[in-house]
């Protein structure tokens, strides 16, 4: 079952870059995200799946579509015609290389003891996130601040113009 989800993920990602219409690309990306989210559920990572659906498939797609609409008037750029053919060609070659490399690894990878004792007990997600990875939360706050201020800095010229008007 997982293998189909993975294939779907890769197919939709490939579609996202081969589509000529940007809106369709963005939507393909969203669909790929949903595949990934389902995969996360199946792998026992429900919270990551929820985030993937709500933020990546939701928020990011919305952001993309907003930008596309804002820049639509003259923003159409024609990609090179051969790009898609080249993509197919290289992609097939890459898949073959990938397959052989991974096959070469089978049996050569070391077997390791399961988990370190420190973490094996932490099966409660909220405990892990809040107690084990607290610093990351601080980092998240920093990152959000950074993103917000960057966006503010980039759009401050508007305000100036508006004030002048």
């Amino acid at each position, binding site marked *: 079952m997982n293998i189909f989800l993975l294939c779907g993920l890769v197919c939709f990602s490939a579609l996202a870059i081969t589509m000529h219409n940007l809106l369709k690309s963005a939507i393909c990306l969203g669909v790929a995200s949903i595949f990934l989210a389902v995969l996360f559920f199946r792998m026992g990572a429900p919270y990551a799946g929820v985030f993937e659906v709500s933020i990546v498939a939701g928020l990011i797609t919305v952001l993309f579509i907003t930008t596309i609409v804002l820049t639509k008037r003259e923003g159409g750029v024609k990609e090179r015609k051969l790009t898609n053919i080249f993509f197919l060609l290289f992609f097939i070659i890459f898949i073959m290389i990938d397959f052989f490399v991974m096959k070469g690894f089978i049996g050569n990878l070391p077997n390791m003891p*399961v988990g370190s004792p420190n973490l094996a007990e932490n099966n409660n997600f909220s405990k892990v996130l*809040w107690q084990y990875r*607290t*610093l990351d939360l601080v*980092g998240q706050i920093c990152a959000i601040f*950074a993103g917000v201020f*960057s966006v*503010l800095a980039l759009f401050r010229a508007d305000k100036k113009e508006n004030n002048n008007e």
Partner: protein
Amino acid sequence: MTNGEGELLFVFIVLPLVVAGIMPLIGKLSKKVVPDILTNLTTFFLLAYSIIVGKQIIFSGIYTTKFSWFGEPMNISLTLDGFSLLMLVTISIVSFCVTLFSIDYMEHYGHKANYYSLLLIMIAGMNGLVLSTDLFSIYVFLEVAAIASYGLVAYGLGHNELEASFKYLMLSAVASGFIVLGISIIFACTGSLTFSEVAIGIHLVNAKYLVGFCAALFLMGFGLKAALVPFHAWLPDAHPSAPAPISAMLSGVLIKVSGAYAIIRIFLNVFGLTYALSTVLMYLGLISIFVGAIIAIGQNDMKRMLAYSSISQIGYIFIGIGTGSPLGILGGLFHILNHAVFKSLLFLNSGAIEQATGTRELDKMGGLAKQMPLTATTNAIGSLSVAGIPPFNGFWSKLLIIIALVQTQHYAFAVLAVLGSVITLWYYLIIQRNAFFGKPEEIWKNVKEAPFWMSCATVILALLCIVIGVTFPFVIKTFLVPATDILASGVSYLYNFLGY
């Protein structure tokens, strides 16, 4: 090892973050004066505090702090050892001078509050990166500093600024993607992310090629942040496009913290410097020295020339670290400190010139020494330092690196390193001649010396160049030897850390 009970180290991350958060609110009340004062107080406090904390570290060794909040145990473990302290002090010095410089310089950009909050977040990110003890935290704080820097590079909102920022963003995003990929493979191998457990895990697991692959990924990811050739292409676009204080911050500190610090910490303390890693580091360093220096010669834009020179100097740091000998590491670390001081000085000076004359092109300048004597003097000091002329600070670090290269019997590297420094001297002489000496141009008759706070910042840095150069035995003894000890002990440092 001391275990702090309180928030001692957490202040380094939280204080700039909080000040950045309240800055827009204050910006509504007072547009200029209050943000100026608040930011400068913050950076000054951080500088003073880092020295106070540093004093304790120097006397009592490594400092770890665990943070608890409302009785709940929180895992915010921050560690300050000799190496982190060195970086922390470097960040604080440069950021203090940069904020001082910004008081006058950022007048015409407007929206100072927004600028200051981005700058403070960048500082918070770098402090967090230096203090964290965990691979993923390093990535998180690296991204924080990077996102703030994208905004700052594009702060001028001109075409070139946007272009530079966009390319920088797109290359950095790929790099940090590879870093996380490396982290995930490391996690798959060892099941942990903290330095000490990863170090032990890697040595227990017999996965040579996977670890080598991760090392390559990290080298590419962090090497791009550090602007090692061939991952350097964003730097000569991004650094000149940013406002001068930000260029100083990026070239002086950011590339070293998010690139060099991370690589050194991970490769020396976590992975252990194997022969392969050492060779790759040294060759990358050598290529960077030459590519950076040779391209810098042909530049006409002063800031672009300085940016290429940063690439070249980063090469020296890596060639020193790559030797793996204590003296080489000492030289590399010393060069980090020195390069932070003189390169930020030079970038600030370029800002002063740009503000006074409105141009960055070396052709058009000329004879500014009469009009701007202070800037000319400080610039000369910076240039001599970067070219490695005694008794300025740059000489000693380069000398240590070259001695280390000879000691480890890399004679060819030693010769080439010296050649590189001759080329460096060459283009700094070009700057000096074109900008300050030479025939005075008629148009610059009315040019005035830089405003007070700007000169103040450059003078502080120029004095530092001389003071570090003259008292370098003291600097080495207090700041660099503890850092070198930690790095030179390699992986065993982390073993001891856990009590193995």
